[in-house]
């Protein structure tokens, strides 16, 4: 049998990237800013969103697309805190969300009457870096109990994110964590990145985080 070679030369992510571009256009047309929240599991994404919805929900119209490998737990926690829609995406084992899931979730959200969409990604600092979801930017969280070196261990994520949040700073007196060292590691991979020091539990540092969110509304859509 003769063997024929067919040149393809196509990016494997091409389809996701096309869908992400469509999502980005939709958001832009409706004046909606979308932020893709990424971290390792347990860094405090959901608690940060709970606080943000509770304290900023009156001022900004915030919707959430909450992704989880299994369960609707995160979406359930957030539902009671907003009259905007919380859309749960269960990835069924996949370690990341993709643009199709976000596109489908947005169908159910009234974008015309929304300022800000949080996409709470699956807890994972590796895979979500490869999937463009159509967001204006990624926000990467890491937390004090995880240790100082997350930025150098997962440089791609910290390089790509528009800003970083170091959460659980209320634990600084209790665990061996060198803040200067953590900041040094972050600067190694991303010298300019804006960093917020927060405790979603005590509320410390959240005013700066809220100011950043306000700055991203409307004029802040960089996509």
């Amino acid at each position, binding site marked *: 049998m003769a063997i024929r070679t067919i040149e393809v030369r196509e990016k494997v992510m091409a389809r996701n990237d096309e869908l992400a571009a469509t999502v980005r256009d939709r958001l832009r047309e409706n004046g909606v800013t979308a932020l893709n929240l990424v971290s390792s599991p347990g860094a405090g994404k959901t608690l940060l969103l709970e606080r943000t919805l509770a304290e900023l929900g009156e001022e900004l119209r915030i919707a959430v697309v909450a992704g989880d490998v299994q369960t609707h737990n995160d979406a359930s926690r957030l539902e009671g805190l907003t009259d905007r829609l919380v859309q749960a995406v269960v990835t069924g084992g*996949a370690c990341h969300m993709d643009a199709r899931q976000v596109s489908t979730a947005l169908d159910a959200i009234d974008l015309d009457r929304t300022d800000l969409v949080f996409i709470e990604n699956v807890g994972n600092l590796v895979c979500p870096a490869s999937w463009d979801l159509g967001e204006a930017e990624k926000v990467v969280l890491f937390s004090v109990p995880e240790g100082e070196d997350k930025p150098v261990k997962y440089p791609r994520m910290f390089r790509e994110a528009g800003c970083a949040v170091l959460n659980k700073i209320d634990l600084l007196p209790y665990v061996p964590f060198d803040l200067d060292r953590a900041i040094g590691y972050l600067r190694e991979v991303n010298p300019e990145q804006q960093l917020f020091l927060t405790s979603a539990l005590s509320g410390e540092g959240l005013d700066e985080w809220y100011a950043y969110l306000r700055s991203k509304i409307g004029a802040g859509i960089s996509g």
Partner: protein
Amino acid sequence: MHELSIALEVCRMAEERLGRDALGSIVGLGLQVGDDAGIEADNLEFCLEALLSSPPFTGAKPVIERLPGDVLRLSYLEVENGDPDD
């Protein structure tokens, strides 16, 4: 970690290119994987071998070319065209 997603997408791309009926005629499949693509090449090869040995595929061999940068590309498909060699 997401090598299986990538392998499934590669299979989808092959189907889009050739149509489902022709998938069984694929004997080889070439991929370019960058060092910074966030992909473990051995794991991707393992996932592809598993998928390509299940119907409608008939055991096509994946060939992975490592490159610098973050490229992740399906570069070619090799198909048996059913014609005799001579």
